[in-house]
């Protein structure tokens, strides 16, 4: 039979295997990396997962509602790269944290930024246990704290600082909000930030969110996340919304879409397009 014939040649397979192994080792060392910064809005259904990637360096913002983030990462990360340099968990709701448990078990993660908030849920508890098992350091950023990333890029944390616990009545308002700068490119990732959170940022750091190039629309297009007030300040050139088709919340809300359309140039939605790839070389930006 066919199988038998193929197996009779197992020594040849072994040889092919070793040859390919040598090839793989060399090709990993002589690879020309992509020099652009990519922002991948992964298609994880009703939830958030955003990958910032340059070459073989990654920062993952949130992990989506289930393990589908793994498939999303598999599509865009270099095959041989099993390391994600940094994870930022905006807040512990299941549609943001769930997939991170899988990420932690499959990828080497060097550190995690999070709000430090206490919240009792099965999945969040397991996320914290997993970080402990893998001894990944958990860091809570201060408002205004910055970090250099991808050599010429910078992240600035805008909200909620070390004070997240005081907003815990509405967990969405404890969302880590951050700004990314890369050359002339700028972006804001607000998690599920709602009215109270936006007001706080506008009163303290208005200039840091004003007129950015890219906005990940807050809270999947909820009217609590986007209104005329904050959109009038941000005025993004590109905006993306992560959400699933026919979600039970009725996202995106009409009010939010109106505010967005009035103030944003291009709006892309994962429920219509699947994963979205926004790229920049620091001078220009485009959607692939």
């Amino acid at each position, binding site marked *: *039979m*066919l*199988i*038998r*014939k*193929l*197996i*009779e040649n*197992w020594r040849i*397979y*072994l040889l*092919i*295997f070793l040859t*390919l*192994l040598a090839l*793989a*080792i060399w090709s*990993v060392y002589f690879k020309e990396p992509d020099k652009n910064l990519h922002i991948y809005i992964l298609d994880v259904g009703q939830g958030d997962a955003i990958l910032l990637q340059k070459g073989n360096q990654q920062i993952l913002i949130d992990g989506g*509602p*289930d*393990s*589908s983030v*793994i*498939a999303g*990462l*598999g*599509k865009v*990360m270099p*095959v*041989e790269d*099993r390391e994600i340099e940094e994870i930022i968990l905006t807040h512990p709701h299941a549609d943001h944290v*769930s997939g991170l*448990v899988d990420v932690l*078990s*499959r*990828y080497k993660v060097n550190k995690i930024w999070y709000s430090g908030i206490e919240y009792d849920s*099965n*999945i969040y*508890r*397991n996320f914290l246990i997993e970080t402990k098992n893998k001894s990944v350091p958990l860091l809570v950023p201060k408002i205004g704290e910055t970090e250099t990333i991808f050599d010429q890029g910078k992240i600035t944390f805008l909200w909620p600082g070390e004070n997240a616990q005081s907003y815990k009545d509405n967990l969405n308002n404890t969302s880590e909000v951050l700004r990314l700068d890369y050359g002339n490119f700028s972006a804001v990732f607000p998690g599920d930030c709602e009215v109270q959170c936006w007001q706080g940022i506008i009163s303290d750091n208005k200039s840091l969110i004003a007129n950015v190039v890219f906005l990940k629309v807050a809270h999947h297009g909820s009217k609590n996340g986007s209104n005329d007030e904050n959109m009038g300040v941000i005025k993004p050139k590109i905006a993306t919304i992560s959400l699933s088709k026919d979600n039970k919340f009725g996202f995106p809300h009409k009010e939010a879409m109106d505010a967005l359309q009035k103030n944003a140039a291009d709006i892309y939605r994962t429920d219509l397009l699947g994963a979205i790839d926004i790229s920049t070389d620091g001078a220009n930006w485009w959607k692939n």
Partner: protein
Amino acid sequence: MMKKKSIPNFRILSILLAAFLAGVFVASFLNLDFYKIYFLAIILSLIILSIIFIFHDFVIKVFSAAAITFFAGFLLFSFVSSKLNNIFLPFGQGREFSGTVVSYPNIDGNSQSFYFLTSDFGPKTKFYLSTSRFPSYSYGDKILIKTTIKRPENFSDFDWVSFLKRYGTVATTANNPKISLISSGNGNWLLQKLYIVRRDFEQTVQKTLPEPESSLGIGLLIGSKQGFGQDLINDFAKVGITHIIALSGYNVTIIIIFLTDILLGYLTRRQIFAVSFILILLFVAMTGAASSVIRASIITLLIAYGKTIGRKTDMTNLILLSAAVMVAVNPFVLRFDVGFQLSFLAFIGLVYFSPIIKQIFNRRFFKRWPNFIKSAIIETLSAQIIVLPLILSSFGLVSLIAPVTNVLILPLIPAAMLFIFLSTLIYWLIPAIGKLAFLICYLPLKYILSIAQYFAKLPLSAIQISGHWQIMITILYILVVIAIFIKFRKNADPQAN
């Protein structure tokens, strides 16, 4: 005396086994209470037994014996089924009780499911439980469950009750039961170790390969669909290659042949048989004893055994015997396990139909074609042709492109399996090199996935047939296949493949 010659000796066994299977099959429709019928059946059997002793006609003897095996099958199914139906549990009531996890938990999206045994309600009973994925439980965990005990109910398109009965289960819990872990390590020592190896293997592949390649890699080696997205499962069904990850037991066949070939220089045939027997037993246990895996193991081991004792095996008896063994162990598989049915039909196709298709490829036109392509086509077609009516009647989705995709994919499977196996070993010894070794596995896996995704997109890769057409076409098709078989089988030599 003329009649005596019409049944060769080795056919007697075939008839007896077929009668046994028929008994189980018929009983599965009637679903009678064993305790009401067993007396009658035993008396009937005794009468038939006396017929065997009274009459001297050979044919009558054989058919009487067949009737007895028929009743044996009939009673067996009724017994197992009645035993399950008579389990008494406080259905619909909230209870707190303890149980031990007795299966390798299956993880699907954000949930995990497993079976557990409890003896808090009298004799040991098996429950099915589905809960959120975290915290994760393992085989051998003793857990305290607080929940409402429920009877399973059928889904709109799936006979869930029969499915669970096949696993010896008639009870399940309400959604989101409250579970707390009492202690770990209460299972069988060997199984616990095997499941740890399995988990290590799965985690190694998941850590080193991206999705969906890692799920495919795991699926190829141990036959599981875990981690496959619904899109991918649909694509695989459309292009007709689901069997490489789930149904065929192809992996076991490959492993046994590998073992035999590698060990042949060092051990005698008898020793190899013993070694592969033990290794396969462990492998079967590790993969959760799916029927496909057992079927392939039994058949391949029987063939290997036949070679060991130097006897040429009769394929019909081999198929029937392995089917009968499996059905005797679990009578529900015969009617309620599509995987069981598919894998046996595929094997029947390989044995009886491939000689017919081979005739076509013996013609001059195909003479120049490379042999491995020819045999890939012959094997794929002969399995597909026989399996098709079952697929038609149970899924309604028929892959038209299957012969092409299978020819493109099957030759790569043994290589991919070997690569993954070697890479895992290397990874366990030297992780840094192992990671790179897995990059090689990436190539064949990516190839298989690309083929599946590309061909699934083609407009006529598969057709969906439903309603009355489903039955009509199925019957018509079976008739045509039987006609072809009768017409051509005389020229074909079944032992030639």
